[in-house]
């Protein structure tokens, strides 16, 4: 095996942090593809050129996604990375694996690929880095025979992902793991056979802490929330204060809606003003607890910058019950796709189409009534739409009030 001199990437091994270079070098001891990837990376750093190209026709028969073709222009110099395709494996809900499952994945990958992995990629999938075209069908056969499936890529529903939810977290407002699994099963066709104008991502968080960052990374964010009050245990509040928490600085002053007060003894919350951001609950776990009906808020449209700048998701459904078989949610998703499909040009994300066509057109298209809670940013710009009929009714009401002197509210 050729030994590459790597002074530049060696710099990335210094310092107290784990280094991907160290891990690549470990893999390179036993794998020619990983070894060439190390040499290739050093050359990229030295010449400040990427040399990678991606896309094309690689994949497994019948699937339109799950494999992303990657090729190096330096195939003659580094034959191990001439083909270096990425394979995405559909991750389990909440990223829970047994050691045996991880070993199984790695054993297969060591046999047919570079041995390098990315757990997890930004899409959520378990990403296997670097294999050759002629190994793809065999890799797919090996994984699928053991119950694994490929993830998604291209103009498709990307592999849905969710936070750990009820598996490990007491704050979750719905079963993110079950919903993630249910949507993955329901939309197999949309995941594996690219049919949209561009990618569509669904991410699920059990509460507003939003551990999968769905508000910024998913075209559709399903974020857990609740309808009731925040229950306060004043004894535990006292304990937090006794143990050194500066409640005014860390909780009261950081409440985005300023709905909390603390007089040094009791903590009070004006629940009508609370936007359920989770800050206080996550800081004072033992003292504060959400109560009442649980469900989720649906937001739409976030994305990273490509056609237009990056966007955060907008609220379109402030509260929806999230319970099996999730019929209401699945129907809503289908309506959203239909509107998007009818209005999008190639490579336009749904958030961009909403920006261009307007939220009014979108809400009409999916059959949602405009309501004040459909806001772009909490507490900043609520908006409402008035149709000509609304205006006519308003004018008639105004005229009647003027005439009779009786005002209706």
């Amino acid at each position, binding site marked *: 095996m050729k030994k590459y001199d790597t002074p530049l990437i060696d710099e990335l091994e210094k310092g107290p942090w784990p280094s991907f270079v160290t891990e690549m070098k470990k893999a390179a001891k036993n794998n020619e593809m990983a070894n060439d990837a190390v040499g290739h990376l050093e050359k990229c750093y030295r010449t400040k050129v990427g040399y990678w190209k991606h896309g094309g*026709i690689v*994949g497994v028969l*019948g699937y339109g996604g799950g494999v992303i073709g990657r090729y190096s222009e330096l195939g003659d110099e580094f034959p191990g990375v001439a083909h270096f395709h990425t394979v995405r494996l559909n991750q389990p809900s909440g990223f829970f694996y047994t050691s045996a499952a991880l070993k199984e994945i790695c054993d297969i990958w060591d046999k047919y690929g570079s041995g390098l992995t990315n757990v997890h990629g930004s899409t959520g999938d378990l990403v296997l880095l670097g294999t050759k075209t002629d190994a793809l*069908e065999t890799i797919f056969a090996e994984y699928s025979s053991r119950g694994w499936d490929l993830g998604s890529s291209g103009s498709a529903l990307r592999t849905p992902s969710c936070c750990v939810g009820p598996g490990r977290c007491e704050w979750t407002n719905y079963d993110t793991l079950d919903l993630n699994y249910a949507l993955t099963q329901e939309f197999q066709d949309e995941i594996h056979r690219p049919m949209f104008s561009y990618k569509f991502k669904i991410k699920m968080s059990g509460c507003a802490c939003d551990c999968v960052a769905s508000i910024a990374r998913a075209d559709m964010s399903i974020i857990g929330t609740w309808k009731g009050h925040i229950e306060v245990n004043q004894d535990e509040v006292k304990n937090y204060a006794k143990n050194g928490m500066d409640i005014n600085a860390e909780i009261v002053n950081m409440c985005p809606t300023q709905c909390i007060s603390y007089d040094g003894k009791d903590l009070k919350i004006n629940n009508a003003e609370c936007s359920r951001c989770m800050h206080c609950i996550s800081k004072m776990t033992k003292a504060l607890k959400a109560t009442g009906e649980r469900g989720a808020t649906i937001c739409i449209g976030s994305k990273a910058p490509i056609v237009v700048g990056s966007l955060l998701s907008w609220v379109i459904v402030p509260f929806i019950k999230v319970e099996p078989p999730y019929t209401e949610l699945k129907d809503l998703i289908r309506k959203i796709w239909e509107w998007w499909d009818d209005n999008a040009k*190639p490579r336009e994300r749904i958030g961009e189409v909403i920006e261009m066509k307007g939220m009014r057109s979108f809400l009409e298209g999916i059959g949602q009534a405009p309501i004040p809670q459909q806001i772009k940013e909490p507490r900043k710009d609520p908006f409402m739409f008035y149709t000509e009929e609304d205006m006519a009714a308003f004018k008639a009401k105004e005229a009647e009030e003027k005439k009779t002197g009786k005002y209706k509210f």
Partner: protein
Amino acid sequence: MEMAELQDKIFAFCEAAKGKKKLKEKDILIGVSTELSLEKDEVKKALREMINVGRLMYSYGGGASSVEIPSEEYLREKGMIK
């Protein structure tokens, strides 16, 4: 319309667009269903079968996917021709 005949029509539709336009799956569904006055679902079923057996294939470039007629290289790689 017989499935085989419909699949030939779909193939001809893709062949006509070859080198001119990257066809999305939706373009084929709308184009062929309008041309033949068929339901989109019928066209979709026929299209999916063609993709399953490698008569058509998905391609990918710049983040967007399209449906294409496979190259000989692809068919050879999948063991469909020698």
